[in-house]
């Protein structure tokens, strides 16, 4: 397939997944704040901090109130990672590959965009954030379902709905975990209290992981939550699961034998998967979860950059060949 097309499908999928995760991301904080003991300050700044966009936020909004943060992360057209901007970008990418994706996918993405655009323009999204974030999650799920059942599971599928989406999801799950870390910074006294458990449960819920976690680990404990969201091989929003799926798609795309590599992103991704396969949660937590996630995010960024360089970058043909191979049909 065309490099440009692969690029667009990859980014279309990433942006939709990003929009969904920003919704989850804000939702976890809304849940945490609702459960907060009386008298405790609202904490919205950590949310901006984990997105990495805090400078732009500080300049234009100043104080991190609930309203400011939600407006910035969800509806601000000038914030390129807001839900609105993600949908706009996803749709622009989809527009350039409309002939590759199914009509049903386009229709759903278009409806999704119109819904978000309307919520942003009318202020309905600000008035009822819970409903809005749920609608975003639903629309994203619907899009993924339609994609899985109407798109050929060929190269385009591996580039977009798997590689793009899974890398994005892995990155965002790591940030959802990180939110808890930033909150903890503010309230070290809460560690180990029932309130702490409530917070971890909220983190699980925001990754739609609560019930699945219960089935596997039963009691809420910080270590088990980290193990579940980071290292589980079977839960579809766990980082390890996402990276394994991305790795398998990369093999499918380039036809490489598992366990070997042909280009840098395959090597980096293979290494990272092995690392997670043999990691123990205690080691990670003892060495510092935040630091671990930081390194993990850097590695995932390197993999994404490698994919872009290997598959999407525009290359020039080699100088004219001497042989007349091209005449043999």
């Amino acid at each position, binding site marked *: 397939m065309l490099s440009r*097309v692969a690029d667009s499908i990859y980014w279309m999928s990433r942006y939709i997944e990003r929009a969904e995760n920003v919704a989850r991301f804000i939702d976890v904080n809304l849940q945490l704040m609702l459960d907060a003991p009386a008298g405790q300050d609202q904490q919205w700044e950590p949310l901006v901090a984990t997105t990495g966009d805090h400078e732009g936020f500080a300049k234009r909004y100043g104080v991190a109130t609930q309203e400011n943060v939600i407006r910035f992360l969800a509806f601000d*057209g000038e914030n390129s990672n807001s839900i609105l901007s993600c949908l*706009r970008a996803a749709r622009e990418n989809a527009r350039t590959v409309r*002939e590759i994706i199914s009509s049903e996918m386009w229709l759903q993405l278009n409806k999704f965009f119109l819904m978000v655009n309307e919520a942003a323009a009318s202020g309905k999204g600000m008035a009822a954030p819970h409903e809005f974030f749920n609608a975003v999650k639903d629309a994203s799920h619907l899009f993924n379902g339609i994609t899985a059942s109407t798109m050929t599971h060929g190269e385009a599928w591996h580039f977009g709905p798997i590689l793009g989406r899974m890398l994005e999801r892995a990155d965002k799950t790591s940030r959802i975990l990180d939110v808890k870390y930033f909150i903890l910074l503010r309230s070290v006294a809460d560690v180990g209290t029932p309130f702490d458990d409530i917070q971890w449960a909220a983190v699980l819920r925001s990754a739609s992981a609560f019930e699945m976690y219960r089935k596997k680990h039963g009691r809420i404990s910080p270590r088990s939550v980290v193990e579940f969201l980071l290292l589980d091989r079977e839960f579809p929003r766990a980082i390890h699961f996402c990276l394994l799926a991305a790795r398998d798609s990369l093999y499918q795309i380039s036809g490489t034998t598992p366990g070997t590599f042909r280009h840098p992103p395959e090597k980096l991704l293979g290494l990272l998967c092995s690392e997670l396969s043999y990691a123990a949660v205690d080691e990670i937590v003892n060495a510092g979860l935040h630091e671990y996630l930081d390194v993990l995010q850097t590695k995932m960024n390197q993999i994404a950059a490698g994919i872009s360089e290997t598959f999407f970058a525009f290359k020039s043909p080699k100088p004219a*060949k001497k042989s007349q191979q*091209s005449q043999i049909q």
Partner: protein
Amino acid sequence: MQFDQYEVGEFFDEMFGESGCPRASAKTLVNNIQSLPEGELLNRQRAAERALLQMGITFNVYGEHAGTEKIFPFDLVPRIVAAAEWSRIEKGLKQRITALNLFINDLYHEQKILNDGIVPADIVLSSKAFRKQCMGFNPPRGIWCHVTGTDLVRHRDGQIYVLEDNLRCPSGVSYVLENRAVMKSMFPQVFAQSKIRPVASYPSRLRDMLEFLAPDHVTAPRCVLLTPGIYNSAYFEHSFLAQQMGIELVEGRDLVVDDGFVCMRTTKGFERVDVIYRRIDDDFLDPKCFRPDSMLGVPGLMEVYQAGNVALANAPGGGVADDKVVYAYVPRIVKYYLGEEIILPNVPTYICAEEKDLSYVLEHIGELVVKAANESGGYGMLVGPHSTKEQQAEFAEKVQANPRNYIAQPTLALSRVPTLCGDHFEGRHVDLRPYILYGKDIFVLPGGLTRVALKKGSLVVNSSQGGGSKDTWVLADARVEEQDEFSTTTRPAVVEGHAA
């Protein structure tokens, strides 16, 4: 909603005869509409608009920050063309395209028609669309104009005239297909009762035509559609057609010339391309051959094309035949190559390059439509009766400065079709653009884009100037034909006007 208050006015109405009775071809639809419960038609109109919005068949409204998008206005009441009339249109279009193709081929070879003095050589050779780079070239299968969208209008006299030949990159066929899809869901009963000829085969016909052009030695040709990109106003159509044909949609930057072939950049390296349906103007195709500043094209493309290693549709250079001055000579072109009288007449046309015509045009500028030879989309045009004295004087000056570049035609009273206006119907002026594919044989899509001027009294159907579209129903039922009054329509006395 009822038609009893509907007024046909002083125009030819496509749905109702002068007596106010529905034409035979429209009876089923009129009965169906009138039997709908009050308000139902408006509901369906709204449902149709919603469907078009959700399908993303929209254009951007520039300058509005909120990312406002609007659908191309669409009116639910279709234009109906009876079977007998359509068969005449079809014959006329095939005749015209056959002759134009011979004409283009002649121009780039012996130029017999110029040497015989049928068409003045300076008019052709000074046309901006004449490409001397194409001299002596034989396009694959001898075809130059693969896709044509010919604009037809009906005057008050009931006669259908050819208004313009669009041989370059005519757009709009995607609206024909999408409008039909919407109409079928809105009026399933009418489709069941009347025999409306389907249009859905267009993408497969287009693909067959493209594959027909591939070099002989290629067994499984790879066809692509070359678009200028998402900011082009016809981008929706480009992606739609590529999707429906199942071919790649490429931009210039996806293609590269390598070792005498055109290749596209894929995730697995370069892959050869055999046929390009290009929706980019000649000027921008190849910076090495045409405009050097083009960022949209593919450097070296023309060399590969001329070596026969890739086919282009439409062929570069073919635009010379839709120059508005050359248009005036088409009846003579048909006669010259085919020895036949033209079936679908031209609108009488004054050629400003001819002295007699020029003085007539300058004297009557207030009654005429004056057009620049190389403009489209309703630009570079003066509609005499709707203009001020100053505009007329200004245009007269332009014409005198460069008569070669202008033609003039009488202002036509375009026919009308009932159109939903609030809670009632009013007549609105329409034209019709059928689409013709020239491959192994010539195929005319039964239907076409009916453009409608939605502003009351307006004659300008372009979407940029308040135009919308309607579905076009070509009937297949022979019984309807017999009763239809179109068969009695008289031929106009003057076919070529002053050009003769």
